[in-house]
């Protein structure tokens, strides 16, 4: 999950505890959510809604490859922007959006 800037710390260590398991699950949820959004967005951008055929045609396939590359780039750029705004650390982030 290089786009979260936290990938380096996730190297395997001996000794499993509940906190690490919870973090791993949060990470898994985050990647799954990211992947699902990418699938939805690239489906909307690349797949014709006519469904005359069950196979991806050449144009759709190429579009998907480029869409994945762009989606990843956008994710990174948005993350950098949030970080430069001082929003990327968890604690400060949600707090910056109104203190209810």
């Amino acid at each position, binding site marked *: 999950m290089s786009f979260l800037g936290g990938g380096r710390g996730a190297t395997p260590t001996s000794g499993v505890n509940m906190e690490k*398991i919870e973090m791993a699950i949060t990470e898994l949820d985050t990647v799954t959510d990211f992947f699902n959004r990418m699938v939805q967005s690239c489906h909307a951008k690349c797949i014709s809604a006519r*469904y005359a*055929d069950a196979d991806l045609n050449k144009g759709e396939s190429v579009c998907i*490859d480029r*869409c*994945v*590359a762009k989606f990843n780039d956008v994710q990174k750029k948005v993350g950098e922007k949030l970080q430069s705004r001082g929003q990327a650390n968890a604690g400060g982030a949600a707090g910056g959006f109104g203190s209810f």
Partner: protein
Amino acid sequence: MTKVIEKKQMQDFLRMYANLAEKCFNTCCNDFTSKALSSKEETCIMNCTEKFIKHSERVGARFAEYNADAMNASQNQS
């Protein structure tokens, strides 16, 4: 741990399934003069499902390549 992951995968699969059915219904069904699916609607649903799976697999393959590259780059840095 394995159990928790398995449960997550089950839930992810069920969400994907519900999502896919909803999307294909919304795209393919626009005629409500009958309660039975027309053969045209049925073909559309089958193609929509099949194509979505192939689409997801291709996105997954590209995403895996991207992650492998990112991991290599990060290892070469450290």
